[in-house]
C-alpha cells in the first residue's frame, strides 16, 4: 500500500461522511412532503405526475397495498421494456438498424427483469445490440424509476420503525414520484452536465468509422451516454451504455469523473442511513448503522487494495517488477485502466458491490483471488454496506433485527429495536428473506456447476453449463458463483469470463434477479407493516442499547457470520482454493525465474 493510495480511500470516505447528514435531512424532508429548496422549481412536476396518474399523495396505504402497487408497477414496466426491445427494429432512433435478431426472447426477458429490478445485469454488449431508443426510452427510464421504487421501499421500512400504532406505511406512488422528481432528476441532470464537461459523449449520431494512422478502420461508437451515465451511478443501476462500462473512456474519462461516479453511488444510501435515525427520533441509531457500514466498507476496500497492490507472485518470480514506484503503479494491473491505477480500481470494485450498483471500471475477473473475493463477499452479504439506493439500508435493518433478536435476549428482555418489539412475525419474515437469497445463489450455482445440456441444443449451446466459463478450475467456479451472487443481490456487475447469453443462463439469472428483488424485499415490507402497527416501548437503562460501539460490532459480526456460515464452503472451492494454489510452492515451482 502507498500513502497516496491510503489517502485516496480515506478522503473518499470522509466526503461520504460529510454528505450523509445534509443528504439525509433533505431526503427526510422530501419523503415527509415538507418543503425543500427544490420545491419552487419542481413542485409543478410532482403535481403534474399525481394529476396524470390520478394519485392522491395523502392517501395512505397498508403494507399489502403498498406491495401490490410496487408489484403492479414492476409488472407493467417489465412488459414495456420487453416489448420495446423486441420491437426495436420498428422504432425510431436506430441508426445502426438493430432488430429482433440481436435481441432474442430470452435475452429480452433477462434484460427486462434486469432493469426493472434495478440490477442492470447485461448479457449483451449495448453498443452492438440495442438502439438508442431502447437505451433511452426503456433502459434509462427504468434506471430512474426502478431506483426510485427501491428508495420508496426503504422509506416505507423506515416508516415502519418510526410510526406507532399505525396501520399504514405511506403511499407508494407518492414516494416513487418524490424520489424521481426531487432526488434522481436533479442529481442526474447535474451529473450529466458535469460528465459532459469532462469529456463524456452525448450524441444521437451513429457510430463513426475512422481510418487510423496505421491505415486500419476503427469504429468510434456514439450515443446519448452522459444522460445514462449519471443516473446509472446515482440510481446504483450500473448498466453501462458500453460493454466496457465505466472502464470505457466515453463513460468515465478521467480520475475525477471516476471519483465523482463513486460518490454518486454512495451518496443516497449514506443519506438514507442518517434519515433512518432522524425518522425514529434518535440520530445515533442512524449513525450506528452508518458506522457498521463504514467499518465493513473500509475493511473491504483496504483488503482488496492490499491484495491488488501485492500483485501476482508468479510475475514477481519471473523477475517482473511489481513494486509501486513514482513512475508505475505496480501490483496487479491486469484488466485495470492505467488512468485509474490500483487504488481507484480496488476502491471502485468495493464501492460498486457494497452498493448494488454493478458498474465496473476494471475487470473483476482479473483481480487476484482474494482481491476479487472482496466484491464477491460484498454481494454475498446481501449488499448491506451502504447498499444500493435503499436496498442496503433494508438489508442492514434485516441484519439489525436478527442481531437484536439473538443478542437482545442476552440482556434478559424480549428483543426490541428502536422501541419496537421483535417478535415471531418479524423473525419469520426476516428468515424468509434470508433463505430466499441464500437459496437463489446456492441452488442456481449448484445447478450451473453440473448440468449438462445437449451440445448445440436450445438451452445451452456449449453443452454442459460449466463449459460456459472461460477459465476452468476454482476461478471458473468463482465466475459462476459471482454471476448468481450479482443477480440475486441485484448488483449487476459481472466477473466476466462467463458466457451468460444462452437461454439457460438468461432464464436462471433472470429468476435470481426476480427472487433478489421481490422475494427478498417483500418480506421486509411485511416487517414494515407489522412494526408500524406496534407501540413504541419506552427507553430505559434496561433497554438493549443499539447505538454504541458494542452494537455496531455486534451488527458487523452478524453480517459477516451469516454470510460466512452460508457461503464459506462455496468460497473455499473458489477464491480461497485459487489463492492457496497461486501462492503454493507447487505453483511457484512451475514458473522458472
Amino acid at each position, binding site marked *: 500500500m502507498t500513502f497516496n493510495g491510503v489517502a485516496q480511500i480515506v478522503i473518499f470516505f470522509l466526503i461520504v461522511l460529510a454528505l450523509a447528514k445534509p443528504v439525509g435531512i433533505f431526503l427526510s424532508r422530501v419523503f415527509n412532503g415538507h418543503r425543500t429548496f427544490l420545491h419552487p422549481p419542481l413542485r409543478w412536476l410532482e403535481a403534474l405526475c399525481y394529476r396524470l396518474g390520478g394519485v392522491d399523495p395523502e392517501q395512505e396505504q397498508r403494507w399489502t397495498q403498498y406491495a401490490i402497487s410496487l408489484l403492479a408497477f414492476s409488472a407493467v414496466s417489465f412488459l414495456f421494456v420487453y416489448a420495446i426491445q423486441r420491437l426495436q427494429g420498428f422504432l425510431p432512433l436506430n441508426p445502426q438498424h438493430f432488430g429482433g435478431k440481436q435481441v432474442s426472447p430470452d435475452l429480452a426477458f433477462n434484460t427486462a427483469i434486469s432493469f426493472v429490478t434495478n440490477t442492470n445485469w447485461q448479457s449483451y454488449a449495448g453498443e452492438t445490440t440495442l438502439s438508442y431508443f431502447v437505451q433511452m426510452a426503456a433502459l434509462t427510464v427504468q434506471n430512474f424509476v426502478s431506483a426510485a421504487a427501491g428508495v420508496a421501499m426503504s422509506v416505507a421500512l423506515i416508516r415502519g420503525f418510526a410510526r406507532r400504532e399505525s396501520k399504514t406505511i405511506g403511499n407508494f406512488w407518492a414516494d416513487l414520484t418524490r424520489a424521481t422528481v426531487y432526488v434522481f432528476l436533479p442529481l442526474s441532470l447535474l451529473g450529466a452536465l458535469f460528465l459532459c464537461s469532462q469529456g463524456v459523449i452525448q450524441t444521437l449520431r451513429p457510430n463513426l468509422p475512422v481510418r487510423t494512422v496505421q491505415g486500419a478502420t476503427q469504429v468510434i461508437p456514439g450515443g446519448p451516454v452522459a444522460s445514462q451515465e449519471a443516473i446509472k451511478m446515482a440510481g446504483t443501476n450500473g448498466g453501462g451504455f458500453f460493454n466496457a462500462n465505466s472502464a470505457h473512456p466515453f463513460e468515465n474519462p478521467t480520475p475525477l469523473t471516476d471519483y465523482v461516479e463513486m460518490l454518486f453511488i454512495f451518496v443516497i444510501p449514506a443519506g438514507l442511513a442518517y434519515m433512518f435515525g432522524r425518522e425514529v427520533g434518535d440520530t445515533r441509531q442512524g449513525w450506528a448503522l452508518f458506522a457498521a457500514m463504514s467499518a465493513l466498507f473500509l475493511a473491504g476496500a483496504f483488503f482488496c487494495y492490499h491484495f491488488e497492490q501485492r500483485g501476482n507472485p508468479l510475475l514477481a518470480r519471473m523477475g517482473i517488477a511489481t513494486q509501486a514506484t513514482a513512475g508505475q503503479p505496480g501490483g496487479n494491473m491486469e484488466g485495470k485502466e492505467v488512468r485509474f491505477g490500483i487504488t481507484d480500481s480496488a476502491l471502485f470494485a468495493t464501492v460498486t458491490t457494497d452498493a448494488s450498483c454493478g458498474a465496473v471500471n476494471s475487470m473483476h475477473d482479473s483481480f487476484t483471488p482474494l482481491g476479487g473475493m472482496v466484491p464477491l463477499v460484498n454481494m454475498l452479504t446481501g449488499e448491506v454496506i451502504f447498499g444500493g439506493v435503499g436496498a442496503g439500508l433494508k438489508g442492514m435493518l434485516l441484519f439489525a433485527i436478527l442481531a437484536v433478536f439473538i*443478542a437482545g435476549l442476552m440482556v434478559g*428482555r424480549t428483543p426490541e429495536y428502536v422501541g419496537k418489539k421483535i*417478535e415471531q412475525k418479524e423473525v419469520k419474515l426476516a428468515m424468509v428473506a434470508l433463505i430466499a437469497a441464500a437459496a437463489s445463489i446456492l441452488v442456481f450455482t449448484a445447478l450451473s*456447476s453440473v448440468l449438462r445440456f445437449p451440445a448445440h441444443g436450445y438451452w445451452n449451446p456449449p453443452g454442459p453449463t460449466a463449459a460456459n466459463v472461460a477459465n476452468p478450475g476454482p476461478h471458473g467456479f468463482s465466475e459462476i458463483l459471482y454471476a448468481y451472487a450479482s443477480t440475486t443481490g441485484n448488483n449487476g456487475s459481472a466477473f466476466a469470463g462467463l458466457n451468460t447469453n444462452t437461454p439457460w443462463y438468461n432464464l436462471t439469472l433472470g429468476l435470481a434477479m426476480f427472487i433478489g428483488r421481490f422475494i427478498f424485499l417483500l418480506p421486509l415490507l411485511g416487517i414494515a407493516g407489522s412494526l408500524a402497527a406496534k407501540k413504541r416501548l419506552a427507553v430505559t437503562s434496561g433497554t438493549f*442499547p443499539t447505538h454504541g460501539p*458494542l452494537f455496531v460490532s455486534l451488527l458487523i459480526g452478524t453480517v459477516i*457470520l451469516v454470510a460466512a456460515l452460508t457461503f464459506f*464452503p462455496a468460497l*473455499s472451492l473458489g477464491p480461497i482454493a485459487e489463492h492457496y494454489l497461486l501462492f503454493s510452492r507447487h505453483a511457484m515451482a512451475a514458473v522458472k525465474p
Partner: protein
Amino acid sequence: MNDKAPITASAAPTSGPASHAGPPRRLSLADATILRRAARDAFAKLHPLKMAANPVMFVVEAGAALLTILLIRGWWLGLPGNSFTFQIALWLWFTVLFANFAEAMAEARGKAQADSLRKTKSETLAKKLAGDRTESVPSSSLRAGDVVMCAAGDIIPGDGEVVEGIATVDESVITGESAPVIRESGGDRSAVTGGTKVLSDEIRVRITSNPGETFLDRMIALVEGAQRQKTPNEIALNILIAGLTLIFLLAVATLPPFAAFSVRAAGAGQVPSVVVLSALLVCLIPTTIGGLLSAIGIAGMDRVMQHNVLAMSGKAVEAAGDVNTLLLDKTGTITLGNRQAVEFLPAPGVTEAELADAAQLSSLADETPEGRSIVVLAKERCGLRGRELPGAAHFIPFSAYTRMSGVDMGRRRLRKGATEAVAEFVRQEGGTVPEDAIEVSRGISRSGGTPLVVADGPRLLGTVHLKDIVKGGMKERLAQLRAMGIRSVMITGDNPLTAAAIAQEAGVDDFLAQATPKDKLDYIRQEQAAGRLVAMTGDGTNDAPALAQADVGVAMNSGTMAAKEAGNMVDLDSNPTKLLEVVGIGKQLLMTRGALTTFSIANDVAKYFAIIPAMFAVIYPALRHLNVMRLATPQSAVLSAVIFNALIIIALIPLALRGVHYRPSSAATLLRRNLLIYGVGGLIVPFPGIWIIDVVVRALHWA
C-alpha cells in the same frame, strides 16, 4: 426458610426414593431417581412424531437414521468404511439422546413433584348441605355452588369460599408452610383450597370449582408441564433456528455439485460422501440451542416454582423479564407490615421516663404490633420491663369511634391515640392541651410518621412517634432495579405527605397516595399507554381488575379467589416482595436462551475449519492450509467435530437448567459481559475442544 418444604426442587440435595406422601420434598439436580427417569424418557422421546416438534433435532435424527440404514447396507454388502460410518451414526444418535435427556431432566423434576401432589389429592367424603341436614358424598361429585360443612380434622373437599364461620386451616399441602392460617367468611381471607385440612372450629364452604378444574389440579398440570404451551418468544426463537437449519441444509445440499465441478476441474479427489455431509450438516445446524431450548423453558418455570410462585403460563414468566414498572404495596412490601414506636417526645414539664411508663402501661394489654413496639421501646429507653397490670386494671381496646385505647387502673385513666381524640379526652377530664404538644404531633405527621398522644387523666404527657419501618436492604434492591431500567412505584392508602416521606426513605421512583383500586387501574393503563410493562401484587377482590390489567399480576395465596383468578401468578407464600425475584427469573430465562443461541451459532466457525479441509483437501491439496487445528486425518477431523457437537450439549445441560449467571445491572453491562462469554467464547472454545478430542480419537485409534 429452611423449615419450609417448598413443593419444588431447590439446591439442598437429598437422596432416596420419594415414598412418603404429604408435602413434597426438595429435589436436587443430580437426584438419582430423576436421572434414571430422565434417561428412560430420553429414549421414549426418540419417536419421530415427538421429534417433529423440534425441527433441528428432527434433522439430526433423520441423519442418524439414514446413516444407520447405510451402515446396515454396508455390512450386508461388505462395503469398506463401515467403521467410520458406524462411529458417526453412533454419535449422531448420542446427539439426539443427549438433547432428549436434557428435556427429560427438566420435565422429570416437575413430574416427580406432580406425583407427590397427586398423592395428596386422595378421594375424601364431603359433608354436603342439603336443606338443613348434611349428607356424605364423594368429593369428586361436588359441583360449583354446592355448600359443604368442614369441621376440625376434615379435609376441605374442593376449592371454595367460606360463607360462614372461622377456622384455622393447614395449607402445607399447597404452600409447604406448616403454620396454620385463618380462614373466615367475608373479607379477603375467605378462599380455601381443596386438599387442605381444617385444624380447629367449623366452617361452611361454598364450592367454586368443578372436579378436574380445582387449584390443585391446575397446580399438578402446571408443575408437570402437561399443558405447557410454547411461549411467544420461544416460538420466535424456534423459527429462527429452524430457518438457520434450512439455510445450512441448502449449504450442505449444494456442496456435492460444487465439489463435482471442482473434482472435474482439478482432476483429483472425490465428491464428499453422504456420511461426511450428514456429519457436516449436524455440526452446522444449531443443535446446542435446538437441543436445550425446551429444557430452558421448563427449567425457567421450575425456578419460579422453587420460589413457591405458581406461574399460570410461561408467557407470564417471560413478561416478568420485560417489566418496566413495578407497583409495590407499601405495607408488607416496602415497609415492615406495622408501624413501630421509635421515639418518646414528652410534653413540657414531663420526663421521658414518665411518658414511657404511662405509654407502656396503656399498651401492656394491647396486642397490636404498635402496642408491642411501645412496650419494647420503653424497655429499651427507660429499662421498664417485666411489668404486670394490677388485677383491677381494665383494658379499653381501640375502636374506630373513639380512636383511642388505654387502661383504667382504679381512678387512674391512661389513654393513647390520635391527637384530636386524646386532646378531646384531656379537655373532658378538665385538663388543658399544650400548644407545643399539638405542634410536635404535626411535625411527626409531616415527616411521614404517626403521632400517638398519651394522656394520664387531665394531664397530657406527650407523644409517641410511630414510624413505618422500611425493610432492610429495600433501598439497595430498588436501586438495582433502577439500574436495570425498572421503575418502582409505591402504592399506599396514606396521605400524600406521609407517602412522600416514606417514598423518599425507601428510594422508590414514584408513589400513589390515598390509592383507590380505580387509581391503581388508571395508573397501570397510563403506564401501558406510554409503552411500559407493569407488574403488581394484590390480594383483595378489589385488586382483581388491576391484577388482570397488569402485564404481570402476582396474587397472594392468602387472597381471594377473584384475585387469584385475575392474576397470572400466585405466590404461595403470600410474600409481595417475591415480585422482585420473579422479575429476575424472567430475565434469567431470556438471557439463558440468548446466550446459548449465540454460543451455538458462534461454534460453527470452528467446525467449518475442521470439516472443510477434511472434505476438500483431496480435491485441492492447497486447502490443507485451512486445517488450522492440525487435525490428524480427514476422518478424525469429522469425527472430532461431531463428538464435540454432541458433548457440548451434555456439558451445557446444567447451565440450561440452572440458568446463566445473573446479577442485576444495566442492559449495556449485561450485553457486554454475555457477548464476551457466549459470543467470543463460543467462537474460541471449539478450536481447542475439537483439537483435544482429535488427540483422544487418535490415541484410541477410532479414526
